[in-house]
């Protein structure tokens, strides 16, 4: 059987020690498909963000396998995990833009980290309707604009996997729908794997698949509309 592209296999993650030990994820197995937007939902503390951290190679599990680009990230060193992260795209709830850098510079710095060409940065901004805002600092942009810059930054290295943590939580409804639509297009039209963590049921209409978590376990998976 061929190795999965992006998947969690019997993954367990614990926080704390001994008596204070709590399980963030318990023997969770999920596989993510190319060209699909997978929505991970669940109440607070259900393990959504932990799952995203594992897929983003930002932490390793206590047990089980985390497969990214067909490699088990638990078995590789720190430096290799850092390299692997350069091929992922991240979108954060709090945008995480560099406050002292303009929109275009925020994209360029990410391009510099991954060794991508700088020319792509302006093209991405144009693509996301931010051509006029290229030289503005993050605090001069609206929430929706900031998130579009963050998505442009996430795509500058042309990643095949995009991980988004509550990308619309800080936005108004209109901006939220725009961002959701944008991420769905990225998956559908560009064939990328997009994983979105969110509380917001609005996302169900944009997701190809929904994974529901509770208390660190997958309790339900379904394809909206099917």
């Amino acid at each position, binding site marked *: 059987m061929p190795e999965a592209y992006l998947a969690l296999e019997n993954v367990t993650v614990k926080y704390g020690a001994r008596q204070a030990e709590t399980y963030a994820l318990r023997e969770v197995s999920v596989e993510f498909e190319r060209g699909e937007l997978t929505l991970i939902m669940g109440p607070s503390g259900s393990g959504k963000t932990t799952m995203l*951290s594992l897929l983003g190679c*930002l932490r390793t599990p206590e047990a089980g396998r985390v497969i990214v680009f067909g490699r088990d990230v638990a078995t590789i060193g720190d430096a290799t995990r850092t390299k692997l992260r*350069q091929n992922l795209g*991240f979108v*954060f*709830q709090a945008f*995480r833009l560099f406050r002292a850098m303009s929109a275009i510079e925020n994209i360029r710095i990410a391009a510099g980290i991954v060794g991508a060409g700088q020319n792509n940065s302006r093209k991405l901004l144009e693509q996301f309707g931010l051509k006029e805002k290229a030289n503005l600092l993050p605090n001069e942009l609206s929430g929706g604009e900031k998130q579009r810059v963050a998505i442009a930054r996430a795509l500058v290295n042309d990643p095949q996997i995009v991980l988004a943590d509550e990308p619309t939580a800080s936005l108004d409804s209109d901006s939220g729908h725009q961002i959701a639509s944008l991420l769905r297009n990225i998956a559908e039209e560009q064939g990328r794997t997009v994983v979105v963590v969110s509380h917001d049921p609005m996302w169900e209409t944009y997701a190809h698949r929904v994974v529901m978590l509770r208390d660190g376990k997958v309790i339900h998976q379904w394809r909206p509309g099917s």
Partner: protein
Amino acid sequence: MRLAWRNILYDRGRFLVTVLGIAFAVFLMIFQGSLLVGFLGAASKLVDATDSDLWITARGVLCFDFSAPLPKRFVEIAQGVTGVEETYRIATSFAEYRNGEGRHHVVALVGADPQVGRGFPMPRLPRTDQVIEHDAVVIDASHQKTLAIARFPEDVEINHRRARVLEQVDGFSSFLGSPYVFTSYLDATEYLGLGSEETMYILVKLKQGYAPQQVKNALQRRLPDVDVWTKQEFSDRSRIYWVTKTGAGAAILTAAILGFLIGLVVVSQTIYATTMENIEEFATLKALGAGRWMIMRTVLAQSLFCCLAGSALGVAVTLPLVDAAKTTIAWVHTPNWLIAAIMPPSFLMCALAALVSIRAAIAVEPARVFRA
């Protein structure tokens, strides 16, 4: 690099605080260093100002200012040693000074033979080496007020003998409470009541081609009851005495070391605080795939930018302040090499402070980027 620069420009308030912290540290180091350098210079200034190769002193004399008498016949003995070209004498001791209005002060009277060197202060005829006798003295400009000299010349008394203060010289301020008063050797022996068979310091000028160490050993063999030093050795001995054997020198040395340590703490704290303020950005960099080197470079560049600006400001502020301090501490001195020498420790300070920050920046958990 660009991120470091942008962060600095963005948060100008924080940058200003950091630069002020570094400038304060640089000020402390330069000012305390100037006190130490000036103190060391003043401790051996009169030894260094002579044109001599060797010094013969009474046994156990620790520094120039605390001399003891020597038998005068040692001068003739010294002149008989192979390699000795000439000998000169210096006499010094504390004396009672009284100005025209009867105001009393204790001074350190120094009298030297005219050949002791052009740089050595004594009352001379203008544009000649000829010493003015009798009863002529000169003082350092910084002590004019202390000695209550309203004009030149002015008649005063030294150890109840008449003396005339002819003029003032620069650069021979005493760090002791007793100002130096310079005169000829013969006048000094009279003021100090030195016996006709006594002298205090015998300075030796060597013939060309003779090694000071070799002649020093020969003199020591001929004069076993005295100490013979090369000029540099006696200069160092005077400095070491004042710095290590007296409270004043130790206090200045301690203050100079404390200045450096306080500077290090101030700089470490400000740079660490700056890094911690940007810690979320370092976490984002790590999440985006930045390696350790990039994070190190960013923190280090931020520290070095701050260090450059802080050092420049520190030097610019300190130099006028040192000049201003000269009105009360005349011997304080800031040589150019001191400023140059302060720069590597300043940068080292910033680099050390940056190291602590780098550890924090590298250790930051990238998964924290998912927290809102």
